C-alpha cells in the first residue's frame, strides 16, 4: 500500500512538478515514523535514559552536573539519533519500496535528502523539544538550556545527514546495525566537538558563541550536500 | 650508546615496530602460500580457467 502510494506519486503525469514526489515521500515517511510503534519516540526515550543515568554515574553534585550539562545533553542526543538511524532505509528495504524509490524518476539524491529531512523532523526535532525538560534534571537554567537546544537545532541535521551515509552503506547487510554505528561515529565527532563548544561558549566561556556556532552550521550545510550524494551512491551499489 | 633514563621506552618502541612489521610480512607470506596451495588443489581436481591456463599458473 505504502509502496503503491509512493510509486504512484513518483510516476505522476509529466505536468505534475517533481516537488510533489518529494513532498509525498516526506509525508509518507513522517506518517510511518509517527505511527509504527512509536519508532521516532524511542529516540526520545533513549535520550531520557542517558540523561537520567548520568547522575547515577557521576554523582548528584549539582555544580558538576551543571558544568557537564551541555556535554551530557549533546552526547545523549548523538547516541539517540544513532539508535534511530537504521530506520531511515531498513523498513523500506524490507518491503521492497526502496527498490522502487531507487528506480523512480526522482533523482535518488533528492529522494535521500527528503528521507533524511523526514527522519530529522520525526526523530531529531523531538530530541530538541525534550531538551528543556531534561535540562532541568541537569540543573541548567533557562538560558543555558536554550543555548544547548539552539546548538542541537543547528547540529542534529548534520548528524542525520551524515548518519544516512552509514545507513545506506549498511542497508543491505543483515546485521548491519553495529557496523553502522562504527561507520557513523567518526563523522559525528566534529559535530559533537563544535556543538558542545558552542553551548559552553554561550553559557560561560570567554569564547564568542558565534565562532563554534557558525562552524556547526557550516558542518550541517556541508552534510546537506555530501550526505545525499554519498547515500545515493551507496544505495545504487548496494541494490544492483 | 647511552639511551638515558627512559631506555626501556625507546627499546620497547623499536621492538614493537619490528614485531608488527614482521607480523605483517609473516601474514602476507602465509596468505600467499595458502592461496597457492588452494590453487594447486583446484588444479589437481581439474578445474580450468577461462583463458585455458592452469589454475596454479601464477605468472
Amino acid at each position, binding site marked *: 500500500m505504502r509502496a503503491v502510494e509512493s510509486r504512484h506519486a513518483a510516476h505522476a503525469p509529466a505536468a505534475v512538478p517533481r516537488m510533489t514526489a518529494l513532498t509525498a515521500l516526506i509525508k509518507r515517511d513522517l506518517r510511518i515514523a509517527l505511527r509504527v510503534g512509536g519508532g521516532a519516540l524511542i529516540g526520545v526515550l533513549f535520550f531520557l535514559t542517558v540523561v537520567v543515568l548520568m547522575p547515577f554515574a557521576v554523582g548528584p553534585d549539582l555544580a558538576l552536573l551543571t558544568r557537564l550539562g551541555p556535554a551530557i545533553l549533546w552526547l545523549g542526543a548523538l547516541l539517540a539519533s544513532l539508535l534511530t538511524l537504521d530506520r531511515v532505509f531498513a523498513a523500506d528495504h524490507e518491503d521492497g519500496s526502496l527498490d522502487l524509490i531507487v528506480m523512480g524518476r526522482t533523482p535518488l539524491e533528492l529522494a535521500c535528502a527528503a528521507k533524511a529531512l523526514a527522519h530529522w523532523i520525526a526523530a531529531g526535532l523531538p530530541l530538541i523539544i525534550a531538551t528543556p525538560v531534561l535540562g532541568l534534571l541537569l540543573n541548567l537554567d533557562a538560558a543555558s538550556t536554550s543555548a544547548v537546544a539552539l546548538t542541537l537545532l543547528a547540529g542534529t541535521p548534520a548528524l542525520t545527514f551524515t548518519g544516512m551515509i552509514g545507513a545506506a552503506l549498511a542497508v543491505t547487510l543483515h546485521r548491519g546495525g553495529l557496523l553502522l554505528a562504527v561507520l557513523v561515529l567518526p563523522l559525528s565527532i566534529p559535530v559533537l566537538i563544535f556543538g558542545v563548544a558552542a553551548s559552553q561558549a554561550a553559557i560561560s566561556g570567554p569564547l564568542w558563541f558565534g565562532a563554534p556556532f557558525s562552524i556547526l552550521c557550516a558542518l550541517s550545510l556541508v552534510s546537506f550536500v555530501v550526505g545525499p550524494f554519498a547515500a545515493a551512491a551507496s544505495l545504487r551499489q548496494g541494490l544492483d | 650508546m647511552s639511551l638515558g633514563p627512559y631506555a626501556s621506552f625507546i627499546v620497547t*618502541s623499536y621492538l614493537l615496530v619490528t614485531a*608488527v612489521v614482521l607480523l605483517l610480512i609473516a601474514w602476507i607470506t602465509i596468505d600467499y602460500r595458502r592461496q597457492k596451495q588452494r590453487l594447486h588443489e583446484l588444479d589437481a581436481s581439474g578445474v580450468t580457467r577461462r583463458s585455458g591456463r592452469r589454475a596454479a599458473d601464477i605468472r
Partner: protein
Amino acid sequence: MTLIDLANPTRFMTLSARVLPWLAAATAILLAIGLYQSAVAPDDYQQGATVKIMFIHVPNAWLSMMVWGVMSLAALGTLVWRHPLADVAAKAAAPIGAAFTFLALVTGSLWGRPMWGTYWEWDARLTSVLILFLMYLGLIALWRAVEDPSRAARAAAILTLVGAINLPIIKFSVDWWNTLHQPASVLRMGGPTLDRAFLIPLLMMALAFSFLFLTLHLAAMRNEILRRRVRTLQMRQARASSSEVGSSSEVDSGSREGSASRPEFGSA
C-alpha cells in the same frame, strides 16, 4: 607502459613478481641506513635520547595518512574509471594502513610517557590518529561484511572517499577543541624547525617506511588477486559438480562469473 596495461591481472602478476624482490632489497637497505642514523643521532637538549622514538613515530603517522590517500585514489579508480585492479589495491592497503596507524598510536603513547608523564594525552595529534584508527577498523569491517568482492569494493570506495573528506575536518576540529581545552603547550622538539641532525634520520626513516609500504602493498595485492582466482574457480567447480548431480540443464559450467547470491566459499 600505460595504466591500462597494468589492468590485466595476469600481466600485473608477472610484473609484480619481477619488481618485488628489488623493492624488498631496497626497503631492507633503506631501513638499515635509517636505523643506523637514528642510533647515532645526538640527544635532544630537552628530551635526551627519547627523541629517537620520533624517528619511528613520525614516519608511521605520516604513512597512516598517506595510505588513506592511496586508498582514496584507488576508490576513485573503482568508482569513476572502474579500473580492475583498483579494488584489489584498496582492499590490500587497508590492513597495512591500520597497522601503521596502530604503531603511530603506540609509539606516540610510549613517547608521551617520558615527555608528558602520561601514557595517553588527548592532544590534537594523538586524538586525530585515534579517530583515524577507528575509521580504518570500520573500513576493514565493511570489506569483510559484504560477500561479493566487487560490491564490497564499491561500498568501501564510498566510505573511503567520505573518510578522506572527513579527515581534514576531524583534524581541524580536534586541533580547535584542543586549543580550547588544553592550557599547557605541548613540548616541541627544539623549536619550530627541526635541527638537521634530527631531520636527516627522520626523512631517511620516512623513506624507508614508504618503501616498506610499497613492498607490503604489492605483495598483498598479489595475494588478493590469487584469492579472487581461488574464489572464481571454487564457484566454477561447485557449479560443475552440481550439474553433474543432474539438477537443472540451464546451469552453464564455466563461462560466466557467479552472482552475489552464490554461497561464499571461504574467501577472506
